[in-house]
């Protein structure tokens, strides 16, 4: 259990580092999404299933979508959703 928690924490840390340091904004947002999913597993390990449900729905769902839509609004997604037009 301790080993699993340590692995998840190291993964979280590197996800955060990647999300911050990468130049590509879409890559940063996707990394942040995986960060949230791992965080949901960590909530489950901490015996808080309600937090896990919320974090999975919010972090991997709503926040990521909001980031993507904001990027699309300001036309930062050039070349990503070209077939949408």
């Amino acid at each position, binding site marked *: 259990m301790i080993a699993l928690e340590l692995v998840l924490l190291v993964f979280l840390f590197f996800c955060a580092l990647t999300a911050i340091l990468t130049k590509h904004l879409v890559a940063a947002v996707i990394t942040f999404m995986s960060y949230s999913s791992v965080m949901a597993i960590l909530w489950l390990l901490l015996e808080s299933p309600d937090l896990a449900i919320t974090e999975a729905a919010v972090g991997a769902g709503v926040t990521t979508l909001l980031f993507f839509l*904001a990027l699309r609004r300001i036309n930062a997604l050039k070349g990503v959703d070209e077939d949408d037009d």
Partner: protein
Amino acid sequence: MLDLIIHQRLYIGSIALFILGLGTLFLHPNLIKKIIGLNLMDTGSFLFLAAMGYMEGGQAPILEEGAEQVFINPVPGGLVLTGIVVAVSSTALFLSLTCRLYRRYHSLNLDDILMRMWSGEDKVEQEEDQESNPVSEQEENEEPK
């Protein structure tokens, strides 16, 4: 020392995430990255709170009849549950502010935006925006030579 760090792993992990987010919020010029940093700070503090409430061998605080149970602390759970949802709404607010800034300055870089604000370029755009407004045109004409 290493044993201590491994034992306090969640505290130290949450602090690492918090500091990472704080540094991003301070130092990264990109506004979207700043918002990601703010979210990292949020989750770091939530993780710290939940780790404070955890107890070895404890269960989620759902009562079952006739069973002798040991529960974790429910107070941080309640705090974090509301906190996560409020964090989303603040993220949405900051993203909409970013959209408005982009609409006006056509840049996501805070240094660019500040440079243009300080050099007075935004005033030009402001007047261009107000050109349809007759009141501001009158004021323009009244300016001293």
